[in-house]
């Protein structure tokens, strides 16, 4: 089917997903037991997808790393007569995953559906430390052992979403997830996804967001930028918090300051700074 997307050689993506999952249920129905699993994770990344069209518009990049911040907590409680066993693990983590493959397949028909795949088991893993405990309570007393174990957190999913007529924003809270985004979670009634995939023809020079897990974009915020020609110019972030500057191939652009002359940004101060590199960008 003809589509203008076949003419797009590259897609620049900025991805932000917050996923959470909570379950409390008896996984051993014959016993008095309770399994609790609670995960909240924020994933972000900026990368470029290259066209490798077949019958459908298709884009891929197998060297995508994502930044992850989150926490997990799992607990299993088993009560048998007068004995109670509790086993659990908890972890807080932040870091950059191993590189993995991201593909985006578009189906330009009435539904404009697309599949974005981050295959599980092919990257996107992060080594973490889990704090574990085991408590045995019995009539004679309680015994608890604690420790720390090396663990691994991984993400991956197959998301079905609706893509725009031309490069733009895709809300991921409307996307359907196939596998559950992270291991040991169930797709049915499970993961809550929110976030944004922004597909653009170029990459923004700067992006402004708040410091929450959701990294909400800060729109209409004015900044002063020192350009390679030595001139300082003012720019304003768009609705998605992005600042696009037509840039030359060489040269450095410096964000000198956020202008505090307008509410509500005048009540904010700069926090963390990070840089997403698109290494394979021509």
């Amino acid at each position, binding site marked *: 089917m003809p589509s203008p997307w076949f003419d797009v050689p590259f897609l620049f993506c900025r991805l932000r997903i917050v996923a959470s999952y909570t379950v409390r249920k008896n996984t051993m129905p014959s016993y008095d037991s309770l399994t609790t699993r609670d995960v909240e994770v924020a994933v972000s990344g900026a990368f470029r997808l290259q066209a490798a069209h077949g019958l459908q518009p298709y884009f891929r990049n197998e060297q995508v790393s994502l930044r992850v911040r989150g926490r997990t*907590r799992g607990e299993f409680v088993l009560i048998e007569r007068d004995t109670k066993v509790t086993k659990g693990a908890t972890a807080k983590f932040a870091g950059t995953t191993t590189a993995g493959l991201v593909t985006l397949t578009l189906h330009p028909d009435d539904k404009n559906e697309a599949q974005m795949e981050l295959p599980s088991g092919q990257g996107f893993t992060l080594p973490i430390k889990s704090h574990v405990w085991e408590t045995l309570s019995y009539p004679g007393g309680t015994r608890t052992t604690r420790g720390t174990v090396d663990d691994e957190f991984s993400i991956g999913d197959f998301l079905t979403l609706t893509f725009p007529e031309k490069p733009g924003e895709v809300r991921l809270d409307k996307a359907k997830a196939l596998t559950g985004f992270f291991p040991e979670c169930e797709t049915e009634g499970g993961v809550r996804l929110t976030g944004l995939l922004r597909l653009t023809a170029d990459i923004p020079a700067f*992006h402004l967001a708040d410091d929450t897990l959701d990294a909400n974009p800060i729109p209409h915020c004015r900044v002063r930028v020192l350009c390679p020609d030595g001139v300082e110019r003012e720019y304003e972030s768009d609705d998605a918090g992005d600042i696009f500057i037509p840039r030359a191939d*060489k040269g*450095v652009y410096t*964000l000198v300051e956020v202008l505090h002359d307008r509410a*509500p940004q005048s009540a*904010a101060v*700069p926090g963390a*700074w990070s840089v997403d590199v698109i290494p394979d960008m021509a």
Partner: protein
Amino acid sequence: MPNLETLLKDTLLLTAAPDAPWKSYGASPGAMEAAAADPGTPGRWNWSHDVRKPGRVSGVTYHLPRTPWYVEQTPTVLEELLWHPIEVGYRGLPLTLELTKKFLVRKYETSSGTVAKGQSAYWLPAELDRSMLLVFGFQLNLRAKSKTFSLEPIPLDVMERDDFMPRPGAKPPKAPVMKVTRTETGTLQLVPLRVLVCAEFVCCQDRNDYVPGAQARTSRLRPHLMLMSNRPLEKLAAKISVRRPSMSTMAHEGGPPADDQDGMSHGMAAGMWSDSNSSEVAWEKLFTASIPPVWSSIFSRVKTNLPAGAGYLMASPDAPGGPGFLSHRWNDVAGRYEQHQEELMPRQGYFDNIHVAPPMRAPKSVRDVYPNAELHLDDITMAPFCIHDCLHLHWRWLPAKEKYLHGWDEKGPYAVPGAPHIPVHQHLRVEMESPHAYAYCVRSDQVLEPGRWEYILHEGLAYGTNAGHEAMARLLMGGRALLAPWPSEAQASWAMFYWVLRYSRTRDLAVARLLEDGAPVP
């Protein structure tokens, strides 16, 4: 740098009961389910709280055990207590922090807990009764409509971070160099102003550490606010309303309340006093027969039956101390008032305390013999050591030896004898809302340091419950000599004991031993 869990350990409730269960509110989807707050086993204190109106506690009662002075009963201590919106200023921007459910993060409840001696520099030893801690989080919404300011709840994930609040005194992080090339996108996070507010309603079991000499027992009630910001706040104004019922329900030994024989008049009234700073007045000598605690010897200023609208500046960093106002004390021998210039402590304001309690009445037989209204026998204010349904609030005490009576210095509480019991930069006004209710109003114009708790009403209140029998007997003995001219029933009457501490009887007139504030000098 601390996260929410670490910061909350500074609260009184979690100092006393670190494992108290809590219930979360306004949590983001997927947040960990919290244990339900424990409604608590019945104690002496009881009260109602509805999270739909979290800034209000109502129906506060106290279960009094039987004493030699009254039967076992449960009078109402407060009709309601209100935490009003807190006003803060940031970069010239006035903000109002409404303590509503929208901003409520957690509610802790406990029915027990212990603060051990030496455990905390901020909290006195205590055994907790039914108590509550409310946690509110506010942040400026950076995504608000352009050119507007609005507040939103602080997201849960932010409060869990170790950099949620800065350490006190920490220098702001150095601004990063923010450079990108053609193949890079630089992301800058903007951090909004955030304010954490804790409202505690902590009820304590009775102890003897509220008055000098440890002779009276009170149960402390600590409905304070604690506030912390991640940015310097230029201004702060907070107000807490303390509202007693208009009528006391207390019943006396032997008789039903409010009959003609009753020793109380039941209509609540408020009085304010200032302690005398004179070094010759030592409270430990008050419990001797030779020195009864007459008002002219222990107080420097008094005002009773305060009307709605009355208000005074009670403490201020602008008050220099030193030679202060003139008091007028009655000299029985000379038969006239003598003028004294009172020496004030730095930051000391107009009064040191407020008490809301029902006045007492002289025994009916005495009132029948002396019907003259000028003697005020049916309107006798209890002071000092009032334990009949009296709610005390002292924001300053005389320079006393007991550390629990010492006030704040720059570093914290319980540090300076005779100093006000509020942070050194706070201005305190107390304003009467009605004859039985008042507003505790705090203002600060000093820049509040990020990451440091600001305490409001840290000193707390106390409900009089009992007194050492021996001490009270000695006290009554001291007053009995002054009651010699009265009928014998008067000499065994607590009401008349309080009367004689306040008045000298000259013919059939009551002459105030310490002239009331504002009264014309005869």
